[in-house]
């Protein structure tokens, strides 16, 4: 850590950039991919003036200057649909990952901290969730309660917390016996305070890894649901675009290729990022 700081820094590169480029290659590539996707999705109105929902008579046009990614069977601009579709995918991915990480963290921390009967009970519940065929259950539940952003977030989030819970529980079991926990208890801290102030900050780095993988898998799950026709047509996501595009697979390759590339970039980027973070000093250090 000292060496990086003392190495000469070129005038054109600020110190943080040098530090970033020195981090593992997977972190650099992963964060660049994610950055490109997120920037494109957020800056969609600046990139294209086309309306993703506006119909026109120019149906199934090949990619050209006017429509860089072509148009679909209803004459809608595919570039706009991919960019705006990313919003639905990313929002569902982020919020369901957030839900599952919060659930998994809470359950994992309580189970790991208290142990005994509480741990047994929580872990049996976790296993019960883990053995559920996740996508099948998601398909059934979404078709019963109806599609829509909120429902998809809830279903995906509620089905994907067990992995996080198990990772966090294992880590907390180690931290629980560290002397500083006894020291905090010795200072007169209640169990809730010990858990929130002393245990939680020590598992956050693990959550970072877990969360980035969780976002990737939630986006995949959402695409899967959309592909099976359970998406929300009012909020077209990449999965929905793929589903609509596969009808024209032989006539209009661009309708599946571009959403597919966007999806693959995001998933790959998030996985690389998670990988890079888990190998980085912060996480490796707290693992000891």
């Amino acid at each position, binding site marked *: 850590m000292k060496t990086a700081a003392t190495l000469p820094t070129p005038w054109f590169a600020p110190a943080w950039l040098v530090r970033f480029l020195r981090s593992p290659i997977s972190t650099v590539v992963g964060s660049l991919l994610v950055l490109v996707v997120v920037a494109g999705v957020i800056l969609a109105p600046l990139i294209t003036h086309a309306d993703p929902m506006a119909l026109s008579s120019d149906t199934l046009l090949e990619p050209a200057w006017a429509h860089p990614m072509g148009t679909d069977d209803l004459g809608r601009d595919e570039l706009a649909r991919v960019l705006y579709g990313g919003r639905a995918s990313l929002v569902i991915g982020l919020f369901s990952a957030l839900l599952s990480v919060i659930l998994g963290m809470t359950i994992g921390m309580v189970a790991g901290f208290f142990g*005994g009967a509480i741990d047994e009970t929580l872990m049996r519940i976790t296993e019960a969730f883990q053995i559920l065929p996740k996508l099948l259950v998601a398909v059934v539940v979404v078709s019963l309660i109806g599609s829509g952003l909120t429902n998809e977030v809830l279903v995906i989030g509620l089905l994907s917390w067990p992995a996080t819970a198990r990772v966090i529980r294992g880590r907390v079991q180690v931290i629980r016996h*560290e*002397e*500083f926990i*006894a*020291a*905090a*208890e*010795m*200072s*007169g*801290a*209640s169990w809730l*305070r010990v858990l929130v*102030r*002393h245990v939680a*900050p*020590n598992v*956050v780095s693990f959550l970072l890894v877990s969360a980035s993988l969780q976002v990737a898998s939630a986006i995949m799950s959402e695409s899967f649901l959309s592909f099976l026709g359970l998406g929300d047509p009012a909020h077209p996501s990449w999965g929905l675009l793929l589903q609509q595009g596969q009808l024209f697979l032989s006539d209009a390759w661009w309708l599946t290729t571009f959403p597919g590339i966007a999806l693959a970039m995001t998933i790959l980027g998030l996985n690389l990022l998670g990988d890079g973070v888990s190998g980085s000093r912060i996480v490796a250090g*707290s693992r000891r």
Partner: protein
Amino acid sequence: MSEPVLSIRDLHVSFPTATVVQGVSFDVMPGEIVGVVGESGSGKSMTARSVLRLLPKSARLGGSIRFRGQEVLDMSPADIRAMRGALVSMVFQDPMTSFNPVLRIGDQIAEAMTLHGQKDRKTLSDRVASLLASVGIGNPKARARAYPHEFSGGMRQRALTAMAVANGPALLIADEPTTALDVTVQDQILQLMRDLNATSGTAILLITHNIAVVASLCRRLIVMYAGRVVEDGPTDEVLTAPRHPYTWSLLQSVPRLDRATGRLVAIKGQPPDPAEPLAGCKFHPRCPWVEERCTRDEPPLEDGVRCWVRPAL
């Protein structure tokens, strides 16, 4: 004669597999520094941790521990929390692991005070700085913002001591506070404890297996063996004229610079396994003066010694 700050009577600590403390009794007077020595597994740490009720869940406690006349073993969890860190606090053995690695040192010291009612940020940060200064950490305002890995072992142990005395406790329990430190740093920590005791009148219960540490700091010394107190008396008397064969053997095995002793004498044999009951005096299998009744009945602690024979040592 004033009331003892801590009064332990017939304390028993047992686990499902073994009894590790049996019938320990002693008092600590206000402002007194009491040393407890014994080898690993003699029950000294368990005795100390019982005072704060910091034992594993499977431990069963018996007897009585009175802190300023109040029975600790009957306290509610809320009362115990109110006592911990405020009236009785503890310095742990390993300064490397006693701080949370992801929180700033100053915040952790401040937390000890926040938990006992002090909420004002300005007062807290001033108090943290003056505490760090009082344990000899230079530039305390800046150092309070440091993380534990930025402190050396000795600095951490001082910061830990600062944290332990933050609320001006009546009793400080130091569980092997110098074991993990260099000799020079050891000396600083001991001096720090001596100063604390002199300036604020905090009573100190010092748990150690290092006789030199006890000799330099404590006025009274308690020797433990196999979960029992075997000798209890003024430090200089215990060290120069031990009355229990175990204390004597222990002193024989300490290297000395002031006289040529030739080979060091090791105590033969092993301490008894707490899981297997042993009749009579617990030291009898290793005692050179063992008699027939030593193997049959356990001697009581009388006049500060637990021995039937009381050989002239």
